């Protein structure tokens, strides 16, 4: 459950991005390159040569901070072309809605809600997190094909912990 190191580097990255935005604002139009590094974390921004026409002067590709909400989209383990259409080819993580115990099936012995390879719809129940006798449904917050069930059945999970991953490009 200790993710302080991860948390710190996320924070650092967020910080670098905020700083980069400040610098871009300070630097004004025509800036060509901004690079920030702190330890392992690096943020680089580059604009096309000024010779090239109308560059998006205000388009700052500041990477988003890690999600605060259970569902998020990240680079997949399976290789995919970064040039693909947005969303396609990136794994989407479905996180725990509450701290508690994760169950894959509605009751002991019953078949699991979903298995790897299944295609799920947005809002479809994919698991349960039990917290103080309350059964909290885990729902897919977008459609896709189940890439992996990350957490074993009966595991105690934190809020937001990734339970399974979806390939949204495989949505029906």
């Amino acid at each position, binding site marked *: *459950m200790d993710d302080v190191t991860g948390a710190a580097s996320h924070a650092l990255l967020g910080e670098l991005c905020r700083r980069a935005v400040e610098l871009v604002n300070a630097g004004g139009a025509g800036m060509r390159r901004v690079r920030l590094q702190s330890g392992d974390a690096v943020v680089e921004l580059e604009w096309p040569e000024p010779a090239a026409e109308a560059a998006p002067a205000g388009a700052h590709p500041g990477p988003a901070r890690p999600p*605060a909400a259970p569902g998020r989209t990240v680079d997949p383990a399976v290789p995919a072309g970064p040039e693909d259409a947005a969303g396609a080819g990136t794994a989407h993580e479905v996180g725990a809605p*509450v701290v508690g*115990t994760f169950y894959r099936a509605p009751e002991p012995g019953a078949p699991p809600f979903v298995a790897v390879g299944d295609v799920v719809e947005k809002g479809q129940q994919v698991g349960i997190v039990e917290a103080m006798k309350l059964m909290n449904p885990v729902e897919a917050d977008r459609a896709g094909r189940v890439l992996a069930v990350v957490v074993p059945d009966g595991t*105690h999970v*934190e809020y937001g912990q990734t339970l399974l991953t979806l390939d949204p490009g495989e949505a029906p």
Partner: protein
Amino acid sequence: MNAPEPAGPLFASVLIANRGEIALRIARTCRELGIRTVMVYSEADRDSPALRLADRRVRIGPAAARRSYLYPPAILEAALGAGAEAVHPGYGFLSEDADFAEMCRAEGLRFIGPPPEVIAALGDKTQARELAAAAGLPVLPGSPGALSSGQAAKDVADGIGYPVIIKAAAGGGGRGMAVVDDPADFARAFAETRASAQAVFGDARVYVEKYVRGARHVEVQVLADLHGNVVSLGERDCSVQRRRQKLIEESPAPGLAPGLTAAIGEAAVSCARAAGYVGAGTFEFLVDGAGRFFFIEANCRIQVEHPVTEMVTGVDLVREQLRVAAGLPLAAGAGAAARGVSIECRVNTEDPGRGFLPTPGLIEEFVPPGGPFTRVDTHGVPGVRVSADYDSLLAKVVVWAPDRDQAISRMDRALEEFRVSGRGVCTTIGFLREVLAHPDFRRAEHDTSLADEMTSGRRRTLQGAARP
């Protein structure tokens, strides 16, 4: 109170159901006692430096407190999942929630605080008033219980005589109160207070009490164990408040006759005994200009301002809470004579020039004061982000000195030394120094209206008077 000490730690593991400086404060004493700590945190606190001191960390929910720090299932699941034996609720959040204390008990977790029944009785202000009156404590004239009819309430108010204060029975933290000077304003104030009580506390019940202007707010720190020991650790004066939220606290209460403070301390102990109190608690009183005192309410938790009592008594109050929760008697020396004077100032990220509006943001520079007889309890570090989701307390600066004048000088030195900055972030430091420099405060002739009158311009603010 002497008994053989146990060989091992009081608990193997304690979950701290709080955040910020108080989570850090509790973790420090746990660590000193060899107790492993589990800290819970919301998404907003994932980078909190307080987490560094925990042995284990559990993310329990999103930034919104009602889905994290105020959500009992998440806290209880975290405690059970991490194998904690006890839960320390700190202050605020679930610290005075009798249902939560009851749920802890049901799950076999020791709740570090009084039993649920005591929390329930003292948490209802009308019940607490009745309990105190029955124990022989002076209470202010007021309604015997909660009032739901506006007309009945007005009859009570008219009987008491104005000004009166309308208070939420389930209130706390200075919210859910209204002072009425003119009978013509009563009906509207009554309706508004009920509505706000319902909105804030989920409980519309209110009661009416005589309002004392020019009063001092004096509270007594009590410790009680399961072996029948109940002691007072002296009083704290918390009269410097902005909109009924404390800004400066000190111990002992200045300018009160020793006989008076002793009588208040005895009253608090009587009330604690009558309530069957267990653990660390605070009994609050108003002291009027004539030197009369009146019980107003009890707090069933460790208080923000507990360090001033620690500084004058040498007693680690969190350690005593843990001892009592583990069934041990109070440590020898708890209740010993106090020495000198201690003052605490709350450094909040707020703008005193705009009604103490919170100013969250990234703290870039953060150099707290240090040196002789100066304690700082804070979760602040350079680079910490103050979230808008929680209260704005950033640091508590606490000083000790042999006498009050020296303590004020020391506090001013410490505050002057404190460097906090960040884009858009304001702090109360400058305002606190103005209060310290105010002649009424220096002469201990202030009352609970000082800070509000200074900010509203009704009282001279002596801009810059604290600066040499």
